[in-house]
């Protein structure tokens, strides 16, 4: 091959004078003339018309570059060919250009126009390649051009070009860091990209340019999680590492629950209201038990979506997932990574090296995880030493009472290895095992003593050092060993070992009273030839003997001290002087002398033999910094878990300090009215674990919001802080009406804010409930406990859900808000302000718009109803279906849809809130939209929505009306009127919408169930209990799926349940408030049994049918 030739000639060139054109490179002091000649030749070739010659020349040049030789003086000749037609020539020119542009900036500019042209090419690959080269040219002058090109490419049609743009971002950043702000904008834009091709690259850019801007991730978090599996492997690594950090700031530690449950639970839940705690103490304890840490569904999403990647062929991906699990997963789930990590041990030795380092760190924290794989860490004689030592580390970490005998047997084999470094490490490992596991200490000690007669001095020395440490723990029983070691002083030459022996004898000279002076005698003889550390220990020994046995050793000590006094090492001279003053009593020496014995013969704590990998896990595992155990440049600290789940709406992590404030934020959305339902929805149950499946989350950015109130946050993260501020401002102004409105909503959690009002209020609530027809005393207590329950629950459970919804909501934000503004203004309660805040991309409209609409809102508020019982939980948000009320054809351009928002209807608790959405598809304005002539069946009542004055063409309004269906599924008929027309419409509720969730404890649930079935016995068995067997389909067997299906079929609240194959739900019918209890019991395989208890048989029967259908479909 030509290039090959060029290469070998290149290599041989320096010696062969026959080929001057490849001669010496300038650096090696070549002759200029030959240099000229060579380059003339190449230049000629480059200038020729033939592509083959150009190619030949370029190949030679590239070979020179590869060899590290300087070819910069060819720059002008090469750069001319940048527009060459031949692809290979062009590519090689690019290679050259990128390499030398930095050195020849002016000339490099000549090529820029070619790339600029390329950027406009219709072919995406050419556009991409032009951008790639352009951004690789490190010439500061073209920064603006690059910036422009990147911006343009970031919105290119082709994902490949966008990917290239993402790659170009860090290049530009490293060239000119002043561009950061603009680049962040581009990154933000690209982060929103939905293609897998871009995801990895843009996260890489994010990590290099602005890893601290974690707020940019909020909106894209779910998408990244869902895309992850399809991203190319290198991108996966980067994304997983970033998400690990992200999750650490966003979620609560999954492992805190034990402690929380055990001791701090009560404080955490009831901390602010002392009285309450006392009152409900009895219940509290029972509540606490079924109030475990519930993982944020987004946290779960991350764990679930990364798990399959443990099966990746790419070791880096496996390691990334492993560290993610180690740092983020609950203890019980971390185990899954062990298998995958052990698999990596079959890989190349470099991979083994890195993996073992990480395993060593992990095995300290989570020993149990690797125990089943103990044997995989056994050492082969063919392993490289560095691998052996790491495996030894892991084996030592894994040692415990049960497996220590096996491990020690392995160690015995290792001790005989030919690799002496490894043997030394093994001896240390034995020492560590012995200190950690008391049971085997004697065995180990005996083994080590045997090693003292080993032929290899290194082994002996190491043993001595380790024995010394072990003996220090229980010296009394081991005078034999000490004697044995004393004998070794004749043979062992390793200074550290000698020093150790001397120290031991000195320390325990009372156990070996006869030998000690003799050793000192010998040492005194050889003192001058000893190493410094040995000398120090000789002095030490002498001092100690002098103190304990001055009769025999006085003269020897004097002698040693005299020798030391004239030693070359000043340390030793100092020590000798110091010790002499201390131990030899003189007139001057005074006070210290008395304490000499105490000083020297004090009880010394035994050393702790610790793994060098201890506490290394404060570095993110798998990182370079972890490996080096030092912070590498650009390392991003792994944050600690937050104490409270942060609110992602606050970009700078200004965490709310006061409880109150936080609560406000969390609770608010619950009271906002429901507007803007359209299309697919998602559930944000108060049981976050069951929340919405991937299918919808992946589609969530496009699809619009749901019917649940939380969703109605209706604004992006970006604007939320502003919003928050605005709200606070407003709040001050309208303090009074606000409170009223909140009270009207009868919120349980509001109580926390106004503690004073609390007690009275509760009583009121109870009375009301009684008024509702629940007269049994049981019920009263139940309601009380559940009210307190919901107080605490609202914080513990709802906040993660809340946080999560906000995040999820962000992308959908644009839709509901404009609609909301036009929606029946009088109906909306104050907290709907959220909806008035414009979506993030738009500039915030001046605040007076908001306040004026606010005023109208307030005027429309009715403040009469306070009747919502606290036991009625804020509803569980199953996926909300939309039904059609009026088709646009029949409605002559007016289309009306409705859905059940599952929110308590504020004006009348016995009514079901129906959210109606009216869109005007006509060309003309529709005026005075209202309901007229409701023709309800007996007992049925309809609370109309306030008249809509006018609806502009293309506009959509959303209003809420209340219907009391009298607990029946009969349709409510009425007329919908405009200024010109009347439409007859009817709303038929699914049975599941006729109820509202109730929160109760497991015990209450059981009690109620019993109560109900007793009721039934009076009449006919089965009167109040309907049971149905069903077979769960494959996709509907997980907890999430079941809970989701049930809650979407009916507006019920989940009841915590001890058994994990049972699911319980409770609700009350809206009109009569009769209890509906649902139990779903999973049997073996797919079988399950559904039981519904209710006084209302009809409702029960229909509900069973609906739920079964929901589960089975």
């Amino acid at each position, binding site marked *: 091959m030509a290039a*090959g030739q060029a290469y070998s000639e290149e290599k041989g060139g320096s010696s062969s004078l026959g080929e001057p054109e490849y001669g010496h490179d300038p650096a090696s002091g070549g002759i200029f003339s030959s240099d000229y000649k060579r380059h003339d030749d190449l230049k000629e070739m480059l200038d020729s018309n033939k592509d083959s010659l150009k190619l030949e020349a370029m190949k030679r040049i590239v070979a020179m570059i590869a060899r590290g030789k300087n070819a910069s003086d060819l720059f002008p000749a090469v750069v001319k060919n940048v527009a060459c037609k031949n692809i290979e020539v062009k590519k090689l020119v690019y290679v050259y250009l990128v390499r030398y542009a930095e050195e020849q900036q002016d000339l490099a500019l000549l090529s820029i126009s070619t790339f600029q042209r390329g950027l406009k090419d219709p072919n995406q690959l050419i556009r991409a390649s032009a951008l790639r080269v352009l951004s690789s040219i490190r010439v500061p002058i073209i920064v603006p051009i690059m910036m422009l090109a990147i911006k343009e490419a970031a919105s290119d049609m082709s994902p490949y070009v966008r990917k290239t743009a993402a790659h170009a971002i860090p290049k530009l950043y490293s060239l000119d860091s002043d561009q950061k702000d603009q680049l962040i904008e581009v990154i933000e834009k690209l982060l929103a990209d939905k293609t897998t091709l871009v995801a990895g690259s843009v996260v*890489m850019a994010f990590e290099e340019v602005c890893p601290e801007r974690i707020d940019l991730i909020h909106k894209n978090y779910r998408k990244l999680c869902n895309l992850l599996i399809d991203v190319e492997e290198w991108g996966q690594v980067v994304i997983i590492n970033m998400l690990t950090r992200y999750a650490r700031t966003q979620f609560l530690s999954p492992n805190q629950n034990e402690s929380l449950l055990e001791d701090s639970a009560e404080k955490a839940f009831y901390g602010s209201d002392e009285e309450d705690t006392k009152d409900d103490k009895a219940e509290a304890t029972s509540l606490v038990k079924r109030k475990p840490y519930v993982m944020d569904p987004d946290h779960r999403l991350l764990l679930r979506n990364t798990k399959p990647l443990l099966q990746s062929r790419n070791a880096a991906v496996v390691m990334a997932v492993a560290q993610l699990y180690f740092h983020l997963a609950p203890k019980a789930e971390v185990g899954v990574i062990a298998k995958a990590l052990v698999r990596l041990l079959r890989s190349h030795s*470099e991979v083994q090296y890195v993996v073992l380092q990480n395993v060593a760190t992990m095995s300290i924290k989570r020993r149990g995880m690797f125990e089943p794989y103990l044997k*995989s860490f056994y050492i082969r004689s063919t392993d490289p030493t560095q691998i052996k030592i790491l495996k030894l580390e892991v084996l030592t970490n894994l040692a415990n009472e049960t497996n220590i005998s096996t491990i020690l047997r392995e160690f015995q084999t290792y001790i005989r290895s030919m690799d002496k470094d490894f043997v030394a490490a093994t001896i240390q490992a034995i020492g560590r095992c012995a200190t950690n596991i008391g049971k085997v200490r004697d065995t180990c000690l005996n083994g080590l003593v045997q090693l003292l007669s080993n032929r290899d001095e290194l082994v002996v020395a190491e043993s001595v050092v380790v024995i010394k440490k072990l003996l220090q723990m229980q010296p009394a029983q081991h005078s034999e060993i000490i004697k044995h070691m004393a004998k070794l002083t004749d043979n062992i030459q390793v200074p550290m070992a000698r020093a150790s022996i001397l120290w031991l004898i000195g320390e325990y000279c009372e156990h070996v009273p006869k030998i000690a002076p003799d050793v000192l005698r010998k040492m005194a003889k050889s003192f001058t030839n000893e190493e410094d550390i040995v000398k120090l220990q000789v002095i030490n020994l002498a001092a100690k003997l002098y103190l304990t046995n001055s009769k025999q050793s006085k003269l020897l000590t004097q002698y040693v001290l005299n020798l030391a006094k004239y030693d070359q090492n000043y340390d030793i001279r100092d020590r000798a002087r110091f010790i002499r003053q201390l131990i030899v009593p003189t007139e001057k020496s005074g006070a210290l002398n008395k304490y000499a014995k105490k000083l020297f013969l004090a009880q010394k704590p035994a050393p702790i033999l610790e793994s060098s990998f201890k506490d290394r896990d404060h570095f993110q595992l798998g990182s*370079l910094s972890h490996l080096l155990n030092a912070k590498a440049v650009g390392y991003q600290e792994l944050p600690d878990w937050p104490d409270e789940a942060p609110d992602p709406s606050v970009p700078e992590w200004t965490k709310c300090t006061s409880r109150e404030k936080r609560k406000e934020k969390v609770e608010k959305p619950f009271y906002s009215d429901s507007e803007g339902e359209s299309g697919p929805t998602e559930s944000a149950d108060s049981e976050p674990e069951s929340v919405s499946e991937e299918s919808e989350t992946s589609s969530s950015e496009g699809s619009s919001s749901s019917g649940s109130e939380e969703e109605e946050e209706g604004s992006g993260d970006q604007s939320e802080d502003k919003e928050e501020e605005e709200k606070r401002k407003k709040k001050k102004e309208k303090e009074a009406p606000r409170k009223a409105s909140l009270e009207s909503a009868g919120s349980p959690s509001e109580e926390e804010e106004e503690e004073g009002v609390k007690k009275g209020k509760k009583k009121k609530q109870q009375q009301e409930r009684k008024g509702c027809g629940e007269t049994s005393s049981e019920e009263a207590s139940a309601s009380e406990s559940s009210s307190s329950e919901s107080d605490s629950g609202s914080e513990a459970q709802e906040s993660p859900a809340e946080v999560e919804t906000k995040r999820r909501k962000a992308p959908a934000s644009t839709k509901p808000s404009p609609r909301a503004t036009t929606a029946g203004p009088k109906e909306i309660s104050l907290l709907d302000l959220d909806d008035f805040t414009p979506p993030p991309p738009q500039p915030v409209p001046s605040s007076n718009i908001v306040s004026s609409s606010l005023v109208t809102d307030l005027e429309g508020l009715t403040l009469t109803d306070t009747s919502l019982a606290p036991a009625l939980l804020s509803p569980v948000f199953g996926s909300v279906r939309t039904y059609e009320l009026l088709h646009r054809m029949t409605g002559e351009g007016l289309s009306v849809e409705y859905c059940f928002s599952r929110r308590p209807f504020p004006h009348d608790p016995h009514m079901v809130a129906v959210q109606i959405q009216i869109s005007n598809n006509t060309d003309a304005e529709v005026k005075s939209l209202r309901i007229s002539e409701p023709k309800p069946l007996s007992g049925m009542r309809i609370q109309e929505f306030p008249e809509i004055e006018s609806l502009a063409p293309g506009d959509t309004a959303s209003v809420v009306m209340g219907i009391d269906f009298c607990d029946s599924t009969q349709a409510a008929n009425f007329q919908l009127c405009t200024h010109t027309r009347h439409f007859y419409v009817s709303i038929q509720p699914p049975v599941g919408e006729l109820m509202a969730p109730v929160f109760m404890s497991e015990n209450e649930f059981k009690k109620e169930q019993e109560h109900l079935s007793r009721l039934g016995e009076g009449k006919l068995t089965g009167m109040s209990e309907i049971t149905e067997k069903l077979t769960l389909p494959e996709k509907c067997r997980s907890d999430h799926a079941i809970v989701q299906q049930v809650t979407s079929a009916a507006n019920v609240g989940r009841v915590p349940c001890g058994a994990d194959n049972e699911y319980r739900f409770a609700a009350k019918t809206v009109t009569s408030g009769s209890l509906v209890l649902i139990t779903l019991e999973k049997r073996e395989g797919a079988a399950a049994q559904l039981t519904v208890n209710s006084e209302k048989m009809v409702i029960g029967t229909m509900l069973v049918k609906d739920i079964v259908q929901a589960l089975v479909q």
Partner: protein
Amino acid sequence: MIHSLFLINCSGDIFLEKHWKSVVSQSVCDYFFEAQEKAVDVENVPPVISTPHHYLISIYRDKIFFVSVIQTEVPPLFVIEFLHRVADTFQDYFGECSETSIKDNVVIVYELLEEMLDNGFPLATESNILKELIKPPTILRSVVNSITGSSNVGDTLPTGQLSNIPWRRAGVKYTNNEAYFDVIEEIDAIIDKSGSTVFAEIQGVIDSCIKLSGMPDLSLSFMNPRLLDDVSFHPCIRFKRWESERVLSFIPPDGNFRLISYRVSSQNLVAIPVYVKHMISFKENSSSGRFDVTIGPKQNMGKTVEGVVMTVHMPKAVLNMNLTSTQGNYTFDPVTKVLTWDIGKITPQKLPNLKGIVNLQSGAPKPEENPSLNIQFKIQQLAISGLKVNRLDMYGEKYKPFKGVKYITKAGKFQVRT
């Protein structure tokens, strides 16, 4: 991420360098040489070296050090894995990854490196994409190129980069459509002195050679998929399908690739196909020792054990060995102290034996440890775990492919302690 790459041969020559960001001087490699010196042994060079301004992450493959220069925090495995991928690519392109082949194809190497990394971040590492961008050299092509002046760079645009199955190139066409699967299992074992198994497990891979036209969608099922305890997949495999049905469903890359690698669950007892009787002893003070090793087949389901090779790292004190073998040849390298005994096929009737005298350095103390024996062997037509491919179905294309499955069992890290 990856700043620069230096390729260094065993004698310490930097024979190739490539920079993806600004140029880093070769002198950075001095830190590497320093570490190499300290490590004595090539395999003990630490893969990660910290220098004042850079970090060096290196791998050692086929007598070449691939030393990459890193400036900021990056997962070390990320770099290591990538470097191995580079070496794999060279192997794939040139048949071997050696200094000569790299030097001979320096331009292709450079072009490859250019495509594989962009600004230090991996761009195209799939062999199918790379081959579309840069054609691997063949004798025929280089002849044609020299005549016509055409080049190795693909003149079609690399559309594979855009596809959502980046591992497969488009427009594949074969006259004979074939799909071959090699199920290769390796036994890792440590056998102790007395012949009992300390540790044994089976590691397997399925290497495939797929030459099918168009976009075939294959699914491969096993008779006993539960055997597979821990599996890692080529990205082409649909994970969900495996999770739910234990079927490997995939659109294969074109050519050779590793489909899965797996570990057989450790509960299954591993049948060790050979046994070793050994008597190695060194006499005190006589500067000689005895060496007597016999290898025999154990239960192996009626298959012959072939390609048996035993290698022993003798202690340093061993000067020479005088041995006689009943079968095969042995060599002893007095410099590296490695004894290699190439036995070949084992016939149960006549067991191969190697015995004789070991000469030790006079005056040196007797070696403490007997060396451990590393055994290699091969058994054709057998997957020791009992794994069996059930069927291979193809969807998406009309033609009928030729399908083949081959089983083979090998010794992996098979070590007998003596």
